[in-house]
């Protein structure tokens, strides 16, 4: 063939749905579904108009945050939240490590694997707010319920990601340590831990700032901490204090974010 005989156009062939008619049908279906779905949303425009006023007050509160008049409550809420965050992260990580090891297919025997995966699934299926409501009902209002909620949530998060990281480790290093006659615990300590430690540290720090943010949310349902203070402020229509609290939460989350990313970089 001469070079001019080759085609000059080329199009990427469809990858998922090969049939042209099916592709059209799927597109049409999506459009129809969206149209139907949007038409079912009822908006009460009169109510929205009324709400604008309240929303504006809220915004004004942000513009004039009042740190001083409720400072004692804010300080107490913050201390509770930070305590809750730190303790729950430490406890959560401590429990997550053995569960994470147990949930790694390449290290744990089958029954242990399924048990640990089960624990992770339960912890992940239950959303923090739901757990918090349940635990507040059980242990009463206050940071103890919050501490338990966050520890529980940390387990699902950290064990799952740790287990996945362990399943991805270099099997050659494990084999080499095993071949020296090392025991199971020594294999974990010498061949697995060095490979997953940087990621475990990173994830723990990441979970620390997630826990702080969550502590504000679960406080609203009664689990103590800064969330409870925020809830009280909103209930009393003290939007200026609420604004101050939200600003403090944002500032702390940002400090934690930058701090932990620097620390992670330093540790790698």
């Amino acid at each position, binding site marked *: 063939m001469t070079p001019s005989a080759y085609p000059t156009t080329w199009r990427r062939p469809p990858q998922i749905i090969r049939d042209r008619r099916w592709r059209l049908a799927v597109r049409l279906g999506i459009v129809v579904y969206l149209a139907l779905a949007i038409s079912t949303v009822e908006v009460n425009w009169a109510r929205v108009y009324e709400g604008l006023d309240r929303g504006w007050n809220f915004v004004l509160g942000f513009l004039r945050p009042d740190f001083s008049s409720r400072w004692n409550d804010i300080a107490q809420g913050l201390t509770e939240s930070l305590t809750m965050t730190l303790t729950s992260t430490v406890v959560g990580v401590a429990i997550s490590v053995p569960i994470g090891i147990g949930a790694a297919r390449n290290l744990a025997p089958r029954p242990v694997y399924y048990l640990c995966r089960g624990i992770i699934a339960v912890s992940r299926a239950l959303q923090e707010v739901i757990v918090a409501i349940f635990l507040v009902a059980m242990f009463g209002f206050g940071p103890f319920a919050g501490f338990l909620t966050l520890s529980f949530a940390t387990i699902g998060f950290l064990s799952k990601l740790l287990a996945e990281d362990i399943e991805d480790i270099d099997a050659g290093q494990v084999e080499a340590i095993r071949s*020296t006659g090392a025991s199971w615990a020594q294999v974990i300590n010498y061949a697995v831990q060095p490979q997953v430690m940087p990621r475990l540290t990173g994830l723990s720090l990441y979970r620390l700032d997630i826990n702080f943010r969550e502590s504000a949310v679960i406080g609203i349902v009664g689990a103590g901490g800064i969330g409870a203070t925020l809830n009280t402020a909103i209930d009393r229509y003290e939007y200026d204090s609420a604004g101050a609290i939200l600003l403090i939460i944002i500032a702390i989350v940002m400090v934690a974010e930058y701090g932990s990313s620097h620390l992670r970089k330093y540790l790698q």
Partner: protein
Amino acid sequence: MLRIESLSKTYRTGDTALSDVSLEVPKGQILGLIGPSGAGKSTLIRCINRLVEPTAGAVWLGDVNLVTLGKAELRRQRRRIGMIFQEYALVERLTVMENVLSGRLGYVSFWRSFTRRFPPQDIQRAFALLDRVGLLDHADKRADALSGGQRQRVGIARALAQEPELLLVDEPTASLDPKTSRQIMRLLTEICAERGLPAIVNIHDVPLAQQFMQRIVGLRAGRIVFDGPPEALTHEVLTRIYGEEDWNAMRRGDEEQARAEAEARERMEALAQ
């Protein structure tokens, strides 16, 4: 020293990696295991320390049958067998010294190894071994800071730290350049000679095997098809090991590759003479 009796391994997928392999390695002998990829070389040495569980047969190390041992006793017996790996298999984020000391894990309690407080004679031996392989100055470096040849030297030191009675060596030079390969092979053979240590070396590089091994065993499709001194490795024998016909379609590619390599090397050697 090591006696393998009709060892077989069939994987769960139904692939037969080894069938009826019998082999005896006396003290101090360095044995090269050659054969095309997929012939079962790796499986054979892993069946000896049971990183792979054999399906049938016996492996006698001295007067212990390794195949029938329970977990705890197997760990104790593994201390007697040092292993050196293709991709070095060092724990990359540990220091060189920790890697060498990990050869002692079978001898110390978990607590001692966890706190890195090894007995003084273990530490002394580790330093001596690092000196022997020429890496005394690198003891505190992390393993991933070393070059390929240096890493394999650490691998050798780790295996020797076990004070083994047998060395299993899996493609020690596969990830190294030709010059470093020769240095590593020389170091290995010297060390084995010094200690009267028997070794089984998986090696796909035929000229390298001929240069350094005292005895060659050729494996093909899980069976021993040649056993003799390196001088007896004629063109005809190599064809028998690396095969010509009788291979199913899947293996044909590997085989051609191996044959092409073997032939290319022969040509290179002819040119060099």
